[in-house]
């Protein structure tokens, strides 16, 4: 194959990949604005399914649960994960490599295994304590925090290892005590990583189905769980509308996370 032919073929693959990635999203978004109840024929633009969403108490309740779950788990995971990432950094030169592996492991663990083990864990605690930690929003928050923490810790850790270790020495040398070092140096320096980690944790939580499904209680249905049960009756334009809103939310959160992660690097390049 000539160089030109190869280039054209590779470019073709690239567009094909984009098509398979984003065309389904575009179709969902399109049919959410359909004026008739069909996912095959587009009859005209309307917002009736969005109005239907807002009027549906079950959906609004699921939406509320999703937001509460995502926000609370992301806040907790960001705090815990930042501390963990800092701990990994300060102990990186000791023989604690296996501990860092413990942090990495949940990232590669299949969700289904993780979800089932969380469920058995919570039900056995509940059985042992006579009703403490019944499956519900609390157990979901705990489960979500536990899979978000490794991502936060790794983002924070990688920002820290990229720093000149003399910066920490310079802080001490310039009369900063431990609290001042944390407040005036470590937090401002980590801020891009922490903000990026929060939004990453948020997107991981809001679209999680598998782990949520196993750790949810009867009253704590989230949007993904609602959608899963709704499409058993067929894909309705209402589901399309929910999906479109979620796509929008995830895109926004991912964009903010990316922006925060790269804003410094970009600024440096622009100045350099």
């Amino acid at each position: 194959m000539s160089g030109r032919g190869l280039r054209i073929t590779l470019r073709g693959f690239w567009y094909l990949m984009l098509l398979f990635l984003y065309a389904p999203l575009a179709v969902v978004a399109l049919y959410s604005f359909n004026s008739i109840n069909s996912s095959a024929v587009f009859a005209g633009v309307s917002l009736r399914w969005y109005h239907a969403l807002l009027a549906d108490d079950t959906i609004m309740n699921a939406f509320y649960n999703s937001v509460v779950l995502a926000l609370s788990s992301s806040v907790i995971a960001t705090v815990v994960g930042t501390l963990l990432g800092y701990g990994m950094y300060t102990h990186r030169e000791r023989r604690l490599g296996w501990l860092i592996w413990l942090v990495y492991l949940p990232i590669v663990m299949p969700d289904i295994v993780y979800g089932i083990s969380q469920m058995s864990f919570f039900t056995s605690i509940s059985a042992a304590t006579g009703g403490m930690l019944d499956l519900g929003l609390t157990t979901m928050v705990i489960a979500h925090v536990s899979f978000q923490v490794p991502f936060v810790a790794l983002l924070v850790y990688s920002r820290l290892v990229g720093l000149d270790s003399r910066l920490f020495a310079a802080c001490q040398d310039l009369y900063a005590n431990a609290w001042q070092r944390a407040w005036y140096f470590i937090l401002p320096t980590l801020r891009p990583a922490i903000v990026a980690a929060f939004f990453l944790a948020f997107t991981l939580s809001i679209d999680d189905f598998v782990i949520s499904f196993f750790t949810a209680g009867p009253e704590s249905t989230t949007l993904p769980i609602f959608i899963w049960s709704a499409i058993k009756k067929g894909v309705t334009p209402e589901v399309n509308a929910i999906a479109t809103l979620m796509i929008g939310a995830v895109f926004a959160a991912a964009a903010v996370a990316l922006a925060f992660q790269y804003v410094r690097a970009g600024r440096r390049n622009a100045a350099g």
Partner: protein
Amino acid sequence: MTVSSTPSKPTSQAEGVRADPPDETARRAAAGIELQGLSKHFAPDAIALDGVDLSIPAGEFFTLLGPSGCGKTTLLRLIAGLEATTSGTVEIGGRAVTEAPAHKRNVNTVFQSYALFDHLNVADNIGFGLRMQRVARAEITRRVAETAAFIKIDNLLGRRVDQLSGGQRQRVALARALVNEPDVLLLDEPLSALDAGLRSDLQLELMRIQRRLGMTFVFVTHDQQEAMVMSDRVAVLDAGRIQQVGSPQALYEHPENLFVARFMGHENLFEIVDRDEAGVVLSFGRLNGRFTAGTHLLIRPETMTVTRDDESVATADNTLRARVAERVYRGHVAEYGLTLADGTVLVATCNNLGEPMFDVGTEVCVSIRTSGVVAFHA
């Protein structure tokens, strides 16, 4: 190791960072440093420093010189309090600070690669130490402005750190340390990242600043030229031990051992084979004269005289026949690599007095002046 406690130049209590207004408390007097039996072991088999005794008088420009891994940066970090001692004591300005953490020592450091804070602009970088000491905001602004003017970076105060050149970063790092008016300023190879021209400018400027402030400077470098140009006194370190302490002149002209002689750039180092009433015997011949005790001999290249081979010269005392094997022209001097009869190579440096140079292959006579010869123990 004996360390002289007299500084080679008088300590001048100079103008200070600012033009002291009369109501201001006078600048703290410069402080000396006393190190006794200082050791640092990172692991039982990783000994960075091994029993260092050192006395640095107040107001001295003192340099720690040695190859990488010799322990000079570790020694600096122990003085700063950034590293805990394994044994020994550190005293700064007559106060024992061995156990004090870095943020409780009135000592500041200019770090290698400068370690400026990316998230702060130049003014906030300089004011960081004062802010951590809870100095009033107006006072911080005033002192930052004065120090910046003194270091000639007042035009940079609003800049972000990533907009600065290497030389500007170096100045900001210096201002960030000096603004705190420390007892002692530590400098960890602050010029090593700069190109040659800027480097020699900043060498002179650092010397000027040190003289004006009368502050004790402890400077770390691996560059013996830099150490000789800048320092009042130099400590040569190797393998965690001090090899010799003295003025640049003492180190260059009277090295106390082979390591110091080599590190100061000397090449004409020979083992003494035998010794008698009249002088010493070396592998390639004998030198008449009175030499101090020692197993080795240094012949300084700039004290030798090279002349055209001539019977009347060749028979003179301490004169050897040689052939020019190599010639390096450096403008103000010519360096000759001279091969003696037995193959030994002697390096001689001749001032360029406008006379024709000797070509490679020329037969010459080299006369050794005993004032340029020093004996020492390996």
